């Protein structure tokens, strides 16, 4: 579906991190890991086509209301599109298409769910943690360069029955080092587990390798430049280990880690 969504809030969440809440009439449910295409900045009466393309954004969480939902999105300002989005004020409208893509499958009952998030990648994992905790023990491992780069930690910590650990490369919060070190330790525990990773490519690739060494299933949620988000522009293709390519927008964004030809990713 496509709506002109009204901006409810658009606030700083520390440094370049921001969160925006959009009121979306007609928005029904979504699966954890699904995304929306969001216009670069608010639409005003003056038509603007630069920047041209909408940006794929993970759905962080939603709050239903009668006939629709408020959709919350976490983002970092790192280019012209997100800079314009940061300027969108309450009452203005952003164009939104979604929910799109295939999200995460929930863990098998009893299987430990190990959620590994880096940077804005954590946004894809929140709803997964919410839904998985009824089925399985959930551990959330969040990583960033520095404490000020972390996103959503407080929200995860507020979830009952969900264990949260943080790693920062400069040691300003949680364990010093990479989040993959936390995953390595978690994987040493006995019993079946499943890894869910979303973050920078290098982080996901490292998670996939660690999981593979321990014969643990691992899914990753990929990011890519997209023009449409619904399988038409074919711009978001990633190379697969089998033949050809898979579209992040339609076959993904969630893939089994062994499906991805990691060496072929740009």
């Amino acid at each position, binding site marked *: *579906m*496509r709506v002109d969504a009204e901006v409810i809030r658009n606030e700083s969440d520390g440094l370049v991190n921001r969160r925006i809440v959009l009121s979306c009439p007609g928005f029904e449910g979504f699966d954890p890991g699904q995304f929306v*295409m969001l*216009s670069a900045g608010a639409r005003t009466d003056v*038509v603007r*086509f*630069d*920047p*041209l*393309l*909408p940006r794929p954004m993970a759905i962080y969480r939603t709050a239903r209301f009668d006939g629709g939902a408020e959709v919350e999105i976490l983002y970092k300002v790192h280019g012209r599109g997100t800079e314009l989005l940061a300027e969108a004020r309450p009452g203005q409208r952003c*164009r939104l*298409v979604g929910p799109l893509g295939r999200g995460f499958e929930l863990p098998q009952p009893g299987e430990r769910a190990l959620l590994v998030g880096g940077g804005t990648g954590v946004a894809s994992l929140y709803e997964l943690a919410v839904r998985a905790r009824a089925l399985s023990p959930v551990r959330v491992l969040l990583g960033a360069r520095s404490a000020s780069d972390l996103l959503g930690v407080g929200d995860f910590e507020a979830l009952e029955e969900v264990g949260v650990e943080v790693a920062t490369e400069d040691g300003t919060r949680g364990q010093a080092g990479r989040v993959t070190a936390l995953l390595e330790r978690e994987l040493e525990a006995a019993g079946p587990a499943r890894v869910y990773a979303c973050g920078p490519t290098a982080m996901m690739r490292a998670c996939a390798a660690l999981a593979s060494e321990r014969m643990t299933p691992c899914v990753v949620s990929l990011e*890519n*430049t*997209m*023009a*449409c988000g*619904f*399988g*038409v*522009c*074919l*711009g*978001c*293709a*990633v*190379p697969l280990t089998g*033949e*050809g*390519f898979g579209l992040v927008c339609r076959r993904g964004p969630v893939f089994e880690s062994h499906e991805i030809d990691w060496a*072929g*990713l*740009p």
Partner: protein
Amino acid sequence: MMEEARGATVPVDLSTRLGEVTLRNPVLTASGTFGYGSEFAPFLDLTKLGGFVAKSLTLEPRWGNPPPRIAEVRAGMLNSISLENVGVDAFLAEKLPALPEGTAVVASAFGTAVDQYAEVCRRLTDAPGVVAIEVNASCPHVAAGGIEFGQDPVGLARLVAAARAATTMPLWVKLSPNVTSIADMARVCEAEGANAVSLINAIQALDVDIETRRPVLANGLGGFSGPAILPIALRMVWQAAQAVDIPICGIGGITSAEDVVKFLLCGASAVQVGTLNYLNPMAGAEIVDGLQAYCERAGIQQITELIGALDFPSR
């Protein structure tokens, strides 16, 4: 009736013709930007469009280029997908039957050799729902097929002649803008029996990442499309319209009904909306509504009145 008696609403006839093909309105959507049609069914009524041109088809299924395949540029985008498609047989067996009754489909044919193009045209002939075949003579980023047929009048003539011999269906030829004289290329198509020309395809272009000192696309060059290219497309449509009598389908940078009117004034009988479909999947239907409203405001009863009505200064 009361309103008509007062003259408040005069019915507008949006229908247009490209040769023997009559369309309910002049708004089609362009090949490569509209998938196989059904991807857009959640967003708009496909039968509201004048028609849509499906993704170009090759004889065999084909994978595209490695990523990155697209990049944003000022008021536009670059792409180098390279004709990834399901192949003509899967299109006929799976994609066409999935479309709602009454959808006007233009099938697009591609090949890396003349006989492949001809065979694709042959297989598409008389397929249910297909109103015309558009030969893609202009993919900007496939070495074989792009340069050979799109930029060389002799190669183009061979291609159009072969496609013409392969099908009795209305035959459109999609032209490349990467030529010195679009008029010459349009004349070649007319001479070899094409029923219409579609133009323009994406403009060959390059953008650079100064950190890596590499092109932004893995393939190097790409095709430039989007709102920025509209004036170039209008110029080429106007030049082609001066050169040939066969109808023209105008393509390039359309974002509104007003842009459609510009193409019609320059001599196009219909248009194709392209890149806009990505950012607004309802765009085609919205532009049809906008065209209706424009004609009502401007007192135009038949949209065909606009075709070629540009008052160009005489030299």
